[in-house]
């Protein structure tokens, strides 16, 4: 029997920011599960607590109630167990490209020479060969995001959290980055959680879409995307997807106005 492993499980998780003790709950006994190798998008208007979800998963915040399980295990300190890619590339301007990418390896205590070899290999694969010794300011936005993604991969985590990684890029770069990301995901067999407020992006990339409603959230709507892989952008124009797209946009719009 084929068992698909659960890599992330929220077991009745409640959360409010610790500084606002009597403040409103952002999540109220929320439950969801992400399986190994899935690509899940989290869609919601700004201010719906999308980034807070990632802060909980990475361990930067602790739940007020309930448990977060990684690979079926409970860790009280989750820091260092999941890979997180922030919205801005957050590359260190004083480090060269390869030194930036190697950051997680350095933190885990790898030797300089070993890091250089493995990072150089991956940079080439990411189309960044020859840029190893340049500084982030010399690279384009798309290239910087690829370095940032490589840095996330090098954390060695099975679960990667990407927080609107392409929102600062221009439309054309964004499209090619989305296709590139899908290739990387298929190749590396990682589990990806992807925050976005762009319906098209969510539909194009993911197997399932979680829709965040206004807080307190007790259940995210779980919408499977009925598309095969490999996908092309044209696939988004079939009637079934168009209907789904309209529904999602309507949902986001009502949330934005109320």
């Amino acid at each position: 029997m084929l068992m698909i492993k659960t890599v992330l499980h929220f077991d009745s998780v409640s959360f409010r920011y610790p500084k606002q003790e009597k403040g409103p709950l952002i999540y109220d006994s929320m439950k969801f599960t992400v399986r190994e190798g899935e690509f899940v998008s989290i869609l919601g208007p700004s201010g719906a607590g999308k980034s807070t979800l990632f802060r909980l998963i990475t361990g930067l915040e602790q739940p007020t109630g309930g448990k977060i399980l990684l690979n079926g295990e409970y860790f009280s300190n989750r820091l260092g167990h999941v890979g997180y890619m922030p919205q801005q590339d957050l590359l260190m301007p004083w480090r060269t490209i390869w030194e930036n990418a190697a950051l997680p390896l350095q933190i885990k205590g790898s030797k300089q020479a070993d890091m250089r070899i493995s990072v150089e290999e991956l940079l080439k694969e990411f189309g960044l060969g020859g840029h190893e010794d340049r500084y982030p300011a010399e690279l384009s936005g798309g290239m910087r995001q690829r370095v940032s993604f490589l840095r996330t991969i090098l954390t060695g985590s099975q679960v990667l959290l990407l927080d609107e990684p392409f929102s600062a890029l221009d439309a054309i770069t964004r499209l090619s980055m989305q296709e590139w990301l899908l290739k990387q995901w298929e190749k590396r067999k990682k589990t990806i959680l992807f925050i976005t407020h762009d319906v098209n992006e969510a539909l194009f990339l993911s197997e399932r879409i979680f829709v965040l409603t206004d807080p307190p959230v007790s259940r995210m709507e779980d919408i499977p995307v009925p598309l095969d892989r490999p996908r092309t952008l044209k696939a988004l124009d079939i009637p079934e997807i168009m209907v789904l797209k309209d529904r999602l946009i309507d949902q986001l719009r009502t949330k934005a106005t109320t």
Partner: protein
Amino acid sequence: MKKWREHTYSFILLVVVLVLWEAIAFNIKMTFILPSPTDILMKLWELKKVLLLEHLPATLCIILIGLGISIILGVGLAISMNSSKIIEKAFYPLIIFSQMIPTIALAPIFILWFGYSIWSKVLVTVLITFFPITINTYDGLRAGSNDLKELLLTMGAKKKDVFLLVNVPSAMPHFFSGLKVAVTLSVIGAAIGEWLGAQAGLGYFSRRMMTQFDGAGVFAPIIVLSAMGIMLFLLVKWVENKTLMWRKSE
């Protein structure tokens, strides 16, 4: 070439001022009160051995020891204030207050404590140079991006890693700004210290010439002092450019 052209106007102005000075000095004809630029240059040439071999090393020694102590003290204080709220609350206001004390007025007491030894002069230098280093480094340590620190935490970084990988590199440009100000001030500090009592040094020599009504002799060591200040500044700038190569790419 372009770099030189930028300075054309200030160069012209400098020449005009020097020519005017020369003309006025020539008409007054009181060299002991207002020596002309050529008088000063001639004096400089005449005294070159004494100034460069005897008095310059004495002053440079005060400056380097003073700066060295200031760097250790300033960086140490900045790191302590950054790591502990209590230390910050205790020291920060006092450090600011220490700058309200007119150091020159306080300097005679150092002579009482340390006599005419080098330490009275070093102390004056430290007192006016540790401030820019401390404050700039402290601000720099706090300038590290919070998002970046949190990203490192998600990678499993310890507090020490975050400090070394984010705080220290972010503080470097600030530290160098502080050091550049400190180097300029150190020349003043050493000269003031020497006025109050010394057996050698450019500040001491300048003051001795004043008691002898030797106007050109007062100015000559000051030229050497200024040249030394400029060299030290350029040296710091050079080290800064070498250390912060990445800034060129921005």
